[in-house]
């Protein structure tokens, strides 16, 4: 589950999931929902494999979203389906999507960057929760 929360000039993503894998997958979907208004219109025509290492979970989430943003910025890939396997300091993932098609995809925000500001990944009793603020 994810929602967009407000931050004066930018947008925040608040994500929750019973599992860590789910948390990362939902976070990715949340990011693309900010870029494309109708992410349900994204087809799974291409797939990409990503492997990321980081020193802690927060940086891992940051780097994961950053890689996805780069995929969009460099190859105009939009995605809405993710298979993520998270370890404490690394993840491997498959990303499914397609090249942005302006006839079908309604673009929404230009995400300048993922920020470290108030970045958090926490485990509560039965679920994982994360917050990340995007620079718009």
């Amino acid at each position: 589950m994810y929602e967009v929360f407000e931050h004066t000039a930018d947008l925040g993503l608040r994500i929750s999931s019973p599992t860590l894998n789910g948390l990362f997958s939902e976070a990715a979907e949340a990011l693309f929902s900010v870029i494309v208004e109708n992410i349900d219109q994204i087809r799974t025509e291409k797939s990409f494999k990503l492997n990321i290492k980081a020193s802690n979970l927060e940086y891992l989430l940051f780097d994961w979203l950053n890689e996805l943003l780069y995929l969009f910025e460099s190859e105009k890939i939009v995605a809405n389906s993710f298979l993520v396997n998270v370890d404490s300091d690394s993840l491997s993932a498959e990303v499914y999507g397609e090249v942005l098609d302006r006839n079908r995809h309604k673009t929404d925000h230009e995400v300048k960057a993922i920020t470290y500001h108030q970045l958090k990944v926490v485990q509560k009793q039965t679920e994982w929760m994360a917050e990340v603020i995007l620079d718009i």
Partner: protein
Amino acid sequence: MSEKKDIYNGPLEKVSDYCWRIPKSYKPGMRVDGLIFASQKLIQEIRKDQAPEQVANVAFLPGIQYASIAMPDIHWGYGFSIGGVCATDPEEDGVICPGGIGYDINCGVRLVKTNLFYEDIQSHLKQLVKELFIEIPTGVGRSGKYKFDKKELKKLMAEGVPYLLRRGLAAERDIEYTEAGGKLDDAEPENVSERALERGAEQCGTLGSGNHFLEIQIVDKIWDPEIAAVIGIEPGQVCVMIHSGSRGLGYQVCDDALKMLRDVPAKYGIKLPDKQLACAPVDSPEGRKYIGAMRAAANFAWCNRQLLMWQTREVFESVFGQSWQQLQMNLIYDVAHNIAKFEKHEVEGKEKKVWVHRKGATRAFPPNHPEIPDMYRKIGQPVIIPGDMGRASWLMVGNAASMEKTFGTTCHGAGRMLSRTAAVKKAQGRRIDQELEEKGVLALARSWKGLAEEHPMAYKNVDDVVDVVHKAGITQKVARLRPIGVIKG
């Protein structure tokens, strides 16, 4: 959907009618006071979020001089507040802080005049706005018509706007009237990552989205006729204002730097209250690497605004059937408002060279400063303050007090009041474009949301902001400009 904002409950002592102090005793670790320039009315607004806390946090930075300063358009950013100014001295272990510049390195504004008046343009306005919207790439993921391969891109970043002059995409005069001549020396394109190059390759000459815009404006009111005469503007005259920055290239340079700096503060024993303030001593390998890349990105941004202006001139030429020279589409000035520069300033009676970080703040050098073009030497550096698309923008000039109080710096815009989500909520069920048209503003954007998030109510009234810096003696009002045509991402 919404988050309750934290209200700032810390100290704000009144220094004068337009200045408030956060004493360095507020938090252990603050090296200097915080100073916020604002009126009584604006300070009430500013208290509503954590921006003042960020002003206090910036005061932790090693080598900070005099005060952590904020302008009246201050709002909550990450690490630094937007509207923040800080100067660090390398001789006192001063740091360079990418967060004090922002992701959009050298985001800035330029103002172009024309010899046209409202009556000349009125019947062409619809066509003009439409053509600008077609010709100038705006919005998410749009490529520009200018393509630079990696070698060219590196030259462009090393040489700035003079590179475009050689390519026939700039005039001599454009360079003279751009801050720093459109080029920071000692840029190091080799320090710019492949990723950044990739993101920038097709984006030079594109507007972007968010709060970036291109506006056709009318000189609405002249405040200082003598200064206006020197600049060459009069009531009713048509101008074009362009607001954009270094696009994906700059964002990536900042992102790369923050990643590089993750563990660097600890390495140098720097204690920070916020990760986003990650920094490195100016005189360290990490500091030097970032400075070289940041300068390269700043040069890219000046080229971006130059190419946006160049395309605007082409559109005017085709609509009016005259050359841009005949239309006298001359650049009044171009200012950066997200940048750090190594400048000479007097600090507590001593002349020093300091790194002035301007994050959502504009350089405002006073009359007779050597870095001002000859034509403006006597009046002070022109400062361009964009407002919101329904009300106004301002042209001002730097005053002597800016050197005494703010390291030669003033505000950069109206400053956001509502978050994007709150602005959209307020605009629900409304046709913002029609509302603007009723006010005499023709606005084209890629999406309803793009307009809704940026609608005038989302911003403080720029007149209030400008009033503070005028009354504080930092900058002097020259003219108010009113938008009549807007394109946005």
